[in-house]
């Protein structure tokens, strides 16, 4: 799991300082992971992660010198480099989410979890596989966004009726692949093994596997690197079963909580 820093170092740039109007300087700071506050007057007090440009802590104003000084500061405070982790993870639109737990059942990387009040939530953002939006494809309510995805509505565009119809078609993996995705992977794997043993045709087995993965890639837009990094079929089955059990338990508890609430009304 990628380590995520607890806070962003902020550089405060007051009007009148040499860097106040310098596009290159401000852009360089942002691209290295520093926040920038442009203020009209020097603040009387600053937070623990604030650095005032032109102060004793950061006397330099040339972009390269500023970045070097901030790098030393960040190192001294034990903060990681900006950009060490590409922030790619699902974001749930709770106005659409129905708490069906399909995403929890589907994700093999334990990105999702259940809150104390039995609601689905994203708990392990850095477990998510960069560029993989597959869980949003299986969400029947188009409730999962990846803000850095290329296309709508997964990127956060407003959801319209066409999107719902289109996503529903993609959700119908059963029709597309002849079973749930994990069952399909297992069956294909078993069939490939069987053919391999009968025909001793490793090329054919490999081709079969490639065809299967290509179908997955196209239907769910899963990057090849993610498919290549998938656990073994046995591990996938175990993870999928564990996730399904967690999802079912969460749904059952949520239903019971709801019933209990209704009885108390």
């Amino acid at each position, binding site marked *: 799991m990628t380590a995520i820093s607890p*806070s962003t170092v*902020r550089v405060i740039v007051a009007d009148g300082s040499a860097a106040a109007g310098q596009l290159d300087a401000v852009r360089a700071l942002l691209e290295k992971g520093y926040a*920038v506050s*442009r203020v009209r007057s020097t603040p009387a007090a600053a937070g623990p992660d604030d650095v005032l440009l032109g102060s004793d802590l950061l006397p330099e104003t040339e972009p390269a010198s500023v970045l070097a000084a901030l790098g030393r500061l960040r190192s001294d405070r034990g903060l990681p480099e900006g950009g060490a982790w590409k922030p790619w993870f699902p974001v749930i639109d709770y106005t659409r989410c129905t708490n069906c737990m399909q995403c929890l059942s589907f994700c093999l990387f334990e990105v999702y979890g259940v809150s104390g009040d039995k609601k689905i939530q994203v708990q392990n953002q850095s477990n998510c596989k960069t560029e993989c939006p597959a869980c949003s494809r299986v969400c029947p309510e188009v409730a999962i966004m990846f803000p850095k995805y*290329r296309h709508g509505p997964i*990127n956060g565009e407003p959801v319209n009726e066409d999107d719902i119809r289109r996503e529903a078609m993609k959700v119908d993996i059963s029709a597309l692949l002849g079973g749930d995705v994990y069952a399909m992977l297992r069956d294909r794997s078993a069939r490939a093994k069987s053919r391999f043993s009968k025909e001793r045709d490793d090329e054919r087995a490999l081709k079969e596997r490639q065809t299967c993965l290509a179908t997955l890639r196209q239907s769910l837009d899963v990057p090849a690197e993610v498919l290549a990094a998938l656990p073994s079929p046995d591990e996938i089955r175990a993870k999928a079963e564990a996730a399904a059990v967690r999802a079912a338990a969460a749904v059952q508890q949520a239903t019971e909580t709801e019933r209990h609430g209704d009885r108390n009304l």
Partner: protein
Amino acid sequence: MAGQILYCHCAYARVVPPETKTAVLEGLLRQDVEFQAVPDLCEMAARGDARLGELAAGGPLRIAACYPRAVKWLFASAGVELGDADAAVCNMRTDTAERVLDRLLAGEEP
């Protein structure tokens, strides 16, 4: 709507056109306005960065970032409620820099 201006540089992806980001940032720097610029709202939300809460609590926000639905729920994922009345989100993925700047600077006194 007067208030704070927040600019997201979306530093770790290429989904916001670079020319739009540059023009918006340059436009803000040319104006005599206070603003907050952050490297990447997604990253801050994932970390549950306390600055998001400070920004939301500091009065109405005008945000230059991406799709409003994504921005609203990114804040929510960090435990920060962003009411529609408290925040106007300008979308640098789809809007022109001029339109974004017009909305960000509306109500600002020179």
